[in-house]
C-alpha cells in the first residue's frame, strides 16, 4: 500500500468517526461568539510559542549541566544531578509548578509580575531533567577511543570537546531533543494553573466568558498541533538524516 494512500485512509476514517460523534451531539454551534475573541487566542498562542522557546533554551542549558554532572568523577556532583533528575521525572509538573509558585516564589517574596519568570524556570527544570538523560546518552555514545584519538593528534581538551565530541553528540541527540520539544510545548499548557496567560489559559477564559466549551477548546487542539506536528516532522527528518550518515 503506498504511504500517501495509507495516510489518506487513516485520516478519512478519523474524520468520519469525528463527524459522526459530533453530529450525534446535537450541538448548537456558536462559532460567532468565539470568533470575536480571536485576538485572545492569538495572543495566547504567541505566548505559548515564546514560553516554549525560552524554556527550550534554558532547559537545554540545565540538561547539559546535569548530563555533565551525571558523568562526573565527583560523587557529590553525580549525586546532586541524580537526585534532580529522579525527583523531577518522578513528580507531576502540576505539583512542581504549584510548589514553585506558592512556596518558593512566596518565600523569595516575588511579586505577581514575576510569575512568568517562575513559570519558565519550573518548566525548564522539568524539561531539563529529561534533556539531561538525552544528553547523557549522547555523550555515552561517543566511544573512548575517539577521545584517545583526539588527544593523540594533540588537541587540547577544549578543542576535543568542540571539534570531536560535540559535533557527534549533537547529531546523536538532535532527534530526541526535537521530540522533547514537542512535549515541552504541550506541557507549557500547565502554566495556566499559575495564571500565566498562555494559549490554554486564554482559551479557558474565552470559555468562561462565552459558555461555549467546545468552540473554545477545539481551536486549542488545532493551535497545539500547528506547533507540534512540524516539530515531530523535524525530529523524524533528523533521525533519518543521522541514520544515513552513520550507515
Amino acid at each position, binding site marked *: 500500500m503506498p504511504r500517501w494512500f495509507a495516510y489518506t485512509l487513516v485520516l478519512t476514517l478519523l474524520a468520519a468517526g469525528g463527524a459522526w460523534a459530533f453530529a450525534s451531539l446535537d450541538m448548537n454551534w456558536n462559532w460567532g461568539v468565539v470568533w470575536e475573541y480571536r485576538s485572545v487566542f492569538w495572543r495566547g498562542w504567541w505566548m505559548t510559542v515564546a514560553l516554549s522557546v525560552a524554556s527550550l533554551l534554558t532547559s537545554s542549558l540545565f540538561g547539559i549541566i546535569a548530563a555533565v554532572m551525571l558523568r562526573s*568523577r565527583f560523587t557529590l556532583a553525580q549525586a546532586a544531578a541524580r537526585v534532580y533528575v529522579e525527583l523531577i521525572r518522578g513528580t507531576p509538573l502540576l505539583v512542581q509548578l504549584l510548589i514553585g509558585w506558592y512556596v518558593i516564589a512566596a518565600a523569595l517574596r516575588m511579586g505577581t509580575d514575576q510569575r512568568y519568570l517562575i513559570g519558565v524556570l519550573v518548566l525548564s527544570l522539568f524539561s531539563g531533567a529529561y534533556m539531561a538523560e538525552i544528553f547523557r546518552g549522547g555523550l555515552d555514545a561517543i*566511544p573512548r*577511543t*575517539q577521545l*584517545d*584519538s*583526539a*588527544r*593523540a*593528534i*594533540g*588537541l*587540547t581538551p577544549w*578543542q576535543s570537546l568542540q*571539534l*570531536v565530541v560535540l*559535533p*557527534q553528540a549533537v*547529531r546523536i541527540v538532535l532527534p530526541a531533543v526535537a521530540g522533547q520539544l514537542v512535549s515541552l510545548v504541550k506541557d507549557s499548557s500547565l502554566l495556566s494553573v499559575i495564571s500565566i496567560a498562555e494559549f490554554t489559559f486564554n482559551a479557558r477564559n474565552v470559555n468562561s466568558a462565552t459558555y461555549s466549551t467546545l468552540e473554545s477548546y477545539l481551536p486549542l487542539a488545532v493551535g497545539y498541533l500547528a506547533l507540534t506536528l512540524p516539530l515531530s516532522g523535524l525530529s523524524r527528518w533528523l533521525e533519518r538524516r543521522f541514520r544515513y*550518515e*552513520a*550507515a
Partner: protein
Amino acid sequence: MNLAINGLVQRFTDPDGRRPPATVLDGLNLTTGDIQALVLVGPSGGGKSTLLRILAGLDVPTSGTVAFDGVPLPRDERALQGYRRTVATVFQAYNLFPHLTAMQNLLLPLVHVHGLTEPEALERVREPLERFGLTAHAHKRPAELSGGQKQRIAILRALVVQPSRLFLDEPTSALDPEMTGEVLEMIGELKALGTQFVLVTHEMGFARKVADEIAFIVDGKVGTHAPAADFLDRCTNPRIRLFLDRTLHA
C-alpha cells in the same frame, strides 16, 4: 632513535577499591641501539599496549623513566600535550572521526594543532594521498571506507604532521587478512622512507621483516630483546619459544 626505559611501573587502582590494584608494567627496563623501527610483541595482557601508550605520551606511568635520544618524557599533562604534538599515534581501530570525511580528518590536526592554513594543509596532503593510492577515497566518510582504507587514512593522518616518530598500536588486529596485507605494506613503505616508529603487533613474520630490534613483553617486563635478525635464535625461554612457535605457524 635511542630509547632508554628504566624501572617502568604502571599500576592501575580501582577508584571504588573493590578490586585489588593491577600491576601491568612491573619494573620494565629496555635500552635500544640507535634504531629506526622497534617492534613490541608478546601475549595479550602482557603490557605491550600499556607501554606504547606511555611512550606516546597518552598515559603517565606510576614510576620509572622513559627517554628518547636522552630526552626524558615529561610527567605533567601540559608538557605531555606539547610532546604529543611532536609524535603521532595510530590505534587498533576507530582512529578517524566519523562525522568528518577522510580529507577533513587529514586536515584537522594540520589546521587546528599545527597552525597551517587550509590551502597549505591541502597542499601538504595531496602528494601522500596520491602515493598511497587514497586520493579517490578522500571525500568519503569513514563509514564508507573499508577497514583497511580507514587504517591507511589514519596512518596518513599521523604521517602528514611530520612527526619525529610514529607509534602504532596493533594497527592490523581488527582487520581481515587481505586488508592486513595492504596496511602492512604501507608500514613497510614507511620503513623505506626512513620514518622512525614503534609498532605493537601480533604479526610475527612481519615484525621480523620490518623491525630493527624486537622486544618480547610478558608479565609487565621485557622477556627477550634482540636485533630482529637473531631474535628467534636468542629466545631460550621455553614460554616465549612456545608463544613464537604458535604465532609463527598459526
